[in-house]
C-alpha cells in the first residue's frame, strides 16, 4: 500500500537542505516503516532533484513519536533565497514522498 495511508509528513528547510519527517499514524506500523524506508530508498526517490555530488541522505529515528527524519542536503539547489524552483522552500517534497509503496 501507499505510504500515504500509513504515515503523514512535514518538510522543513535550512539553507539548501530539506528535512522530511515521516510519522506513522499508528504506533504498530512504525517498525514496518523503519525497516522499509531506508535513507537509500528516499535518496533514490528524489534522484535527479538533488545537486550532483551533494552529501548523502541521512536518516534519524524517533521511536517515541513513531517517526523517521530524513535530511536531504542539496535538494533546494542553492537554497530558498536564490532557487528558481516554483516551491523554493521544498515544502511539497514530503507529500510527494508519501507516494512510495510499503510492502506488507
Amino acid at each position, binding site marked *: 500500500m501507499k505510504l500515504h495511508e500509513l504515515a503523514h509528513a512535514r518538510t522543513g528547510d535550512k539553507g539548501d537542505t530539506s528535512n522530511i519527517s515521516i510519522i506513522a499514524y499508528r504506533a504498530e506500523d512504525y517498525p514496518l516503516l523503519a525497516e522499509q524506508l531506508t535513507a537509500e530508498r528516499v535518496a533514490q526517490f528524489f534522484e535527479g532533484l538533488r545537486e550532483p555530488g551533494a552529501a548523502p541522505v541521512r536518516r*534519524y529515528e524517533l521511536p517515541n513519536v513513531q517517526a523517521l527524519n530524513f535530511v536531504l542536503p542539496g535538494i533546494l539547489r542553492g*537554497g530558498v533565497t536564490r532557487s*528558481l524552483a516554483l516551491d523554493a522552500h521544498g515544502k511539497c517534497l514530503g507529500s510527494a514522498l508519501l507516494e512510495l509503496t510499503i510492502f506488507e
Partner: protein
Amino acid sequence: MKTLRIGSGAGYSGDRIEPAVELAEQGDLDYLVFECLAERTIALAQQARINDPAGGYDPLLAERMRRVLPFVGHHRGKRRLRVITNMGAANPVSAAAEVRRIASELGLNCKVVAVVGDDVLAQLGPEHVLDNGQTLGSLGTRLVSANAYLGVDGILDALREDADVVITGRVADPSLFLAPQMFEFGWAASDWTLLGRGTLVGHLLECAGQVSGGYFAEPGLKHVDDLARLGFPLAEIDADGAAVITKVAGSGGLVSPATCTEQLIYEVHDPAAYLTPDVTADFSRVAFTQEGADRVRAKGAAGRARPEQLKVSVGYLDGWIGEGQMSYGGPGAVARAQLARDIVLKRLALTGVKLQEVRAELIGMDALHGPRSSVEPWEVRLRVAARCDERSDAVRIGNEVETLYTNGPAGGGGASKSVRQVVAVASLMLPRDQVNARIQA
C-alpha cells in the same frame, strides 16, 4: 510554584493577527511572543533601511502592537502580559521608538526595550569565508547584511530592566521563548537539561499555528476543525520545564500528539543535537501524551553544553530573477505548452539573453518534483524562470513568455510576468565572545 503561560502570536512576518489578539484577550498569558524573521528577512529589511534610515523593521509591527498593547503593562498594580518579538529585524531601535509612539497615542504606560548587537557587519573583514566558499571580500558592494543569531542574553537583560515589550533583531527563534522561562524560574544559563526543555517549548511554539492544527489538515486522513479561525498555541510551563501545549477554548484548530510531532521535527536535522546559541538541545527521546481536548504534554527533552560559535547569516545581492507564465487548456494542452517552452528557450538563445541558470517547466506536470504522471491534465501552465546578472536580461524572460500570445502555439492565455532582485543568504560562524548582545532602553 506558579505555572508560566507563554503564547505564540506569529509564526512569520505576514501571519494572521486576530489569533494573537485572541490569545492576548483570552489566553491569560504572562508572555506573548511574535516570531517574524525568516532566513533572509533581515537582508531585505536592511535594504529597506538603506532607503529609509528609520525603517527596516517588520511592516506589521504597528498593526500588531496597536491590537495587543492594550493588554500589556500594569493594571491596578498587577502586571499583565509582556511582549517579546524579533520584529525589530534590521532596526530594533527604531522599531522600539515606533512602539513607544503607539503606546503613548493609546495613552498606555509601558516600558519598551530594544536588544541590539546582532548586526556584526562592521566587525567582519574581507577574509571571512562563507559556507558556500565565497569570501566577503569577493562580494564587494553586493554585501548587504551580516547578523549573528543571538541567544537569550539580551532579552534576559531587558526583562531584568522590567521591560513590558522587548524588541530584537536576529535572535534564534526558540531563544525568544526560552528567555522568559529562564527569567521567571531563575534557571541557570548552564543548566543544560532545563534549557533543553525550555528550548523544546520554544521550538514547538515558534511557528505559531503550525503546532495547533495549521499546515496539517488532509481531507479524509487528518481532520482539523475551523482552520479559518485557527487558534494560535500557548504553553503552560512548570518550574522544572514540564509543559503542556494547548490553545484558547473555542478557537479552531487541533492540538494532538500528531500535530506536535510534525512540529517537533520541523527544520530539525539530528534530533539529538538541535543547536541554538543557548544549548545543544536533545529532542531524540521526546514523547507526547494527550491530556485532554487540545491539550498535549511534552516530555523527555534534554540538553548538553551550548556551541562555542554563533551562526551569522549573511545577505548579499545575487542578480535578478525574471519569470513568465502562460496557461494552456483542453485537448492537446501539454503538447502546446511543451512547444511553447521550446520556443521561449530558443528565443532567449537567439536574442542573446545572458542567463546564469534557467528553468522551464509545466505546472501541473513536472514543476514541483520532475515528471511522473502520464495522465493528460485538463489544463497546464508553462513557467519559465531564470537568474541573470543584469536586470535588463531578467526582464526579457517574462517578455518572451508574453509574446507567445501572438507568436506562439494556439490558445495560450493568462500570461503573467515578474522581475525581482535576488537577495541571497549564506552563513559563517563567529566565536561567541565576538558577539555582544546589549540593550537600549
